[in-house]
């Protein structure tokens, strides 16, 4: 399979997962580029232990989390970070620009994503994969390389923490 074929088949999957993490078109495009560069470099080492889709999901999740970490690093150590990284990640950091969100829902979704962004990495990933990407429990577990029980627990904890952050903290 050539890179172009893989790209055509999975470009929107990668782009949309990245969008759920960063909620910004420019950064999601940047992540998509990084993901396919990584696929290009590692394609010959890909073992068919998991499906290509699962492998691409994993790379996308990791690249998205890398970008978020880089963003935080710049926020904390701004003057010590190389200018390349700075220009790459500093632009539009706080700008909510999610093309999948309807205009009338933008404000509510921005608030919701702000709360989601405060969740721990693995809880956020579980929530994104199960609720937004609508994957089955076993698919999400395979992508995150955890058991079904663990993913269920992560999802429940994500819901609970989200409720706390949104002040709905009773009875969840």
């Amino acid at each position, binding site marked *: 399979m050539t*890179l*172009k074929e893989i*790209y055509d088949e999975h*470009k*929107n999957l990668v*782009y*949309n997962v990245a*969008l*759920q993490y960063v909620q910004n078109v420019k950064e999601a*495009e940047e992540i*998509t*580029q990084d993901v*396919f*560069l990584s696929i*290009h470099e590692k394609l010959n080492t890909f073992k068919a232990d998991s499906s290509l889709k699962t492998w691409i999901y994993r790379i996308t999740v990791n690249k998205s989390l890398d970008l978020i970490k880089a963003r935080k690093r710049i926020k904390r150590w701004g003057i010590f970070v190389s200018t390349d990284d700075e220009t790459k990640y500093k632009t539009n950091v706080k700008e909510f620009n*999610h*093309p*999948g*969100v*309807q205009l009338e*829902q933008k404000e*509510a*979704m921005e608030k*919701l994503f702000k709360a989601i962004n405060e969740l721990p990495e693995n809880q956020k990933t579980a*929530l994104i994969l199960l*609720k*937004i990407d*609508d994957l089955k429990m076993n698919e999400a577990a395979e992508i995150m390389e955890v058991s079904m029980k663990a993913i269920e627990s992560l999802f429940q904890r994500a*819901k609970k923490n*989200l*409720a706390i952050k*949104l002040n*709905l*903290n*009773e*009875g*969840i």
Partner: protein
Amino acid sequence: MNSSSSKDSMEMILGQLENIKRAEISDRVYDRIVERISKTSEKIPVVWVRAAAAVFLCLLAIEILSVNSLTKEKNKSEVAQLVPQSNNYLYNE
């Protein structure tokens, strides 16, 4: 807020997430990927740079060791010349 209503609100909020539409990626992204691939392939691979650096360090270490051992030998012989060798012969023997 009671237990069931907060559960309902949470489900409603999560339901909003399910309504997010799939977005289409811009066509120009693939061109940028190809551009970045061609740029990275022009660069010298890191493995080769590391190998060259390792060889250079080895040569440097060998050079330092050989210079050190030569200097030691030279110093030894110089010191040996300065120290009078004692023996059991008498002057008039």
